[in-house]
């Protein structure tokens, strides 16, 4: 199609030239740190010492942490499916006035920073909270509740999407063949939802198994998972080898889960009908109990902790006031924090902004490079997914072990830059996951048409790709900013004690006794939730404009 033109630069060279930037970034800040962690865990004095590794891993302490991790993840997944699947029916299969708002509201928990969720559940059960009498503080149960809070929306979205696209004719067919409602559900609906349920459950398990912030805050000194154990080993016992070994165990668990997730996702894609069917139906009076039950359950698990958080941020010994919010502008007493919480918040914003820029630019570059399916594109795409599987804790630990020194002439020791680098790695997969499908959805004939009309490759990108990618890019930037701002897993390892971010400041305040500290932590958590919420709202707005015009 293109006019014959003498090419000065080989397109392959250009491709690899552009790919060099994300690949180098990942190699330096992700692969190398990861390799370092493995090396540190498995060797001693430069020799492989698997015996030492085995010894460190089989202490009752470590085994207990591994068991707790699996148990919590299993319980959290079970709870999320039990609550999320019926909610998917009520909110996605049925149509009723206000269902759109209910869906949006039910999706909020997933975008909240872990620290906010942890603070909210802590507000419920901690001394002075409405559920303090239950004695659930620092118990497995409260952690499971927080995990369910988080992952119900994941399950609801995935299962709901599948349920809404199920042909209701199939159930009718079963009914005319003599199946009762229950039998039709068991023999027809459930098998059809199977792949989506498996996919949702494995994803929930993945998130539950790497929920560092929640366990650290809610488990206190009594419940330890692999990730909180890594943190403890690094910060209190300075045992880097055990920390490295534990993160390898975590990597194996996450790897297996990712493998299962991918299999389930493929099965789900295979089983999806070729043509999209609208299987939703208008809710009738008979559906009211189901809808009300689902809404009530969602309201209790999603609403009550958030209400408790806001309430306790306003309640002090002398009644309701903005005392704790005002205190955010002052440096806390007794050297608990080196600076006022608001300064930490400002610090958080600048760090998150840098992380967002890095993740967005790299994401856009990657999306462009993998638009055309090819061997190298598949490879690059696969490489870029790695950070999803590796939990934020591991990214943080890896960067800490590797880059706390001079790197090619730059002194990164305790550098301010480590924090945005870590956050950008956590956010990057979300950016590419948003941008790559959007870039691939652009009809290649548009580009051919533009090229045939005389546009150079750069012009084609600027005049065809970019206008069509701008909206998804806006969504991706919003995602990245929200993730970076609330990021805790990697940041906990990288933020300097004298320059905390908002999430690390909140966790530090929650970790100290005293009504004033805790009250300030709750106020800071409300602030963090508000800022994150505003960013996500803006990003969703971008998406909605995009959809309205499609």
């Amino acid at each position, binding site marked *: 199609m293109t006019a014959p033109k003498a090419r000065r630069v080989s397109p392959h060279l250009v491709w690899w030239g552009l790919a060099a930037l994300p690949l180098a970034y990942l190699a330096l800040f992700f692969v190398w740190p990861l390799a370092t962690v493995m090396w540190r865990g498995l060797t001693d004095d430069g020799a492989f010492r698997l015996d030492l590794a085995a010894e460190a891993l089989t202490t009752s302490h470590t085994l207990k942490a591994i068991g707790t991790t699996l148990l919590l993840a299993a319980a959290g997944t079970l709870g999320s499916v039990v609550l999320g699947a019926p909610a998917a029916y009520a909110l996605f299969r049925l149509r009723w006035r206000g269902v759109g708002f209910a869906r949006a509201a039910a999706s909020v928990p997933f975008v909240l920073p872990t620290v906010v969720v942890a603070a909210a559940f802590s507000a419920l059960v901690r001394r002075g909270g409405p559920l303090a009498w239950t004695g659930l503080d620092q118990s497995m149960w409260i952690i499971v509740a927080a995990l369910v809070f988080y992952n119900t929306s994941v399950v609801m979205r995935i299962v709901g999407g599948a349920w809404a696209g199920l*042909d209701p004719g199939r159930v*009718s*067919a079963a*009914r005319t*063949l*003599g*199946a*009762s409602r229950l039998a039709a559900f068991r023999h027809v609906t459930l098998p059809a939802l199977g792949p989506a349920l498996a996919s949702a459950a494995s994803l929930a398990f993945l998130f539950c198994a790497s929920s560092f912030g929640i366990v650290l805050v809610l488990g206190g000194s009594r419940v330890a998972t692999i990730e909180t154990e890594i943190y403890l080993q690094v910060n209190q016992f300075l045992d880097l080898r055990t920390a490295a070994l534990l993160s390898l165990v975590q990597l194996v668990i996450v790897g297996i889960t990712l493998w299962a997730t991918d299999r389930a996702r493929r099965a789900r894609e295979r089983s999806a009908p070729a043509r999209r069917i609208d299987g939703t139906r208008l809710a009738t009076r008979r559906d009211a109990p189901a809808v009300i039950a689902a809404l009530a359950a969602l309201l209790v698990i999603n609403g009550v902790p958030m209400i408790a958080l806001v309430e306790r941020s306003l309640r002090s010994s002398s009644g309701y006031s903005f005392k704790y919010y005002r205190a955010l502008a002052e440096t806390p007493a007794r050297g608990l924090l080196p600076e006022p919480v608001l300064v930490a918040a400002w610090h958080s914003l600048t760090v998150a902004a840098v992380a967002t820029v890095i993740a967005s630019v790299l994401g856009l570059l990657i999306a462009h490079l993998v638009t055309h399916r090819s061997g190298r594109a598949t490879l690059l795409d696969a490489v870029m997914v790695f950070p999803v599987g590796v939990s934020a804790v591991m990214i943080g630990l890896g960067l800490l072990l590797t880059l706390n020194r001079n790197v090619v002439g730059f002194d990164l020791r305790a550098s301010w830059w480590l924090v945005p680098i870590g956050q950008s790695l956590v956010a990057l997969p979300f950016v590419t996951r948003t941008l790559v499908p959007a870039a691939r959805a652009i009809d290649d004939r548009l580009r051919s048409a533009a090229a045939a009309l005389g546009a150079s490759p750069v012009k084609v990108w600027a005049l065809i790709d970019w206008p069509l990618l701008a909206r998804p890019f806006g969504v991706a930037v919003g995602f990245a900013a929200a993730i970076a701002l609330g990021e805790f897993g990697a940041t906990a390892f990288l933020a300097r004690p004298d320059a905390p971010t908002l999430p690390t400041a909140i966790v530090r305040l929650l970790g100290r006794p005293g009504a004033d500290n805790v009250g300030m932590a709750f106020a800071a958590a409300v602030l963090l939730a508000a800022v994150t919420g505003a960013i996500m709202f803006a990003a969703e707005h971008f998406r909605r404009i995009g959809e309205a015009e499609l």
Partner: protein
Amino acid sequence: MSTPADAGTTGLRVTDLTVVYPGAREPAVDSVSLAVKRGETVALLGPSGCGKSTLLAAIVGIIAPDAGTVEFDGEDVTHVPIHRRGFGLVFQDGQLFPHRTVAGNVAFGLEMAKMPVAERDKRVSELLELVGISQYRDQPVAKLSGGERQRVALARSLAPRPRLLLLDEPLSSLDAELRSRLAGEMRDILARTGTTAILVTHDQAEANAIASQVHRMEAGRILPRG
């Protein structure tokens, strides 16, 4: 199954059936009355959107009518749940269960009726034979062609011996040649099994080929004959 009774009460009797979709101005089915005698096949012929499929759905019980009654052999079944009416329905697009084999699909209704396994296998073989697809018995349904799928759908609906079989444009997704061949076969199968049936179609030739009586439908009403 058949009990001697006078002509007025055997078979299907639909009286003043009305269906109004929520938010719609005009009823989709407007006070329709219809009778089908045992062993007879009646066709409802009309353009798409005339309410014929809605009428079928209301008779079989997928949609609750806003007014009117559905009786079979004198028994009012208007409020009987779908699965207890003993009415079969062949869907336009087959609605085969994708997770079951051909035999698994045909056996579904028999399983619901809790028929013993041996007897069930025999009945499945019998029906696959009847519709001429015995060779696909253990195949997944996804591999079948359009015509084969509709044969499975017909066999599946006939398997539990419904007292009334409703056919919702069963051949409309097939090409013309296959359609006329299958129409002839379908008439023979219905006659051989003595099935009482209502066929909904927009194809005059198909209606004539399968049914002994043809009613025309328009805007939710059955037109008077003539």
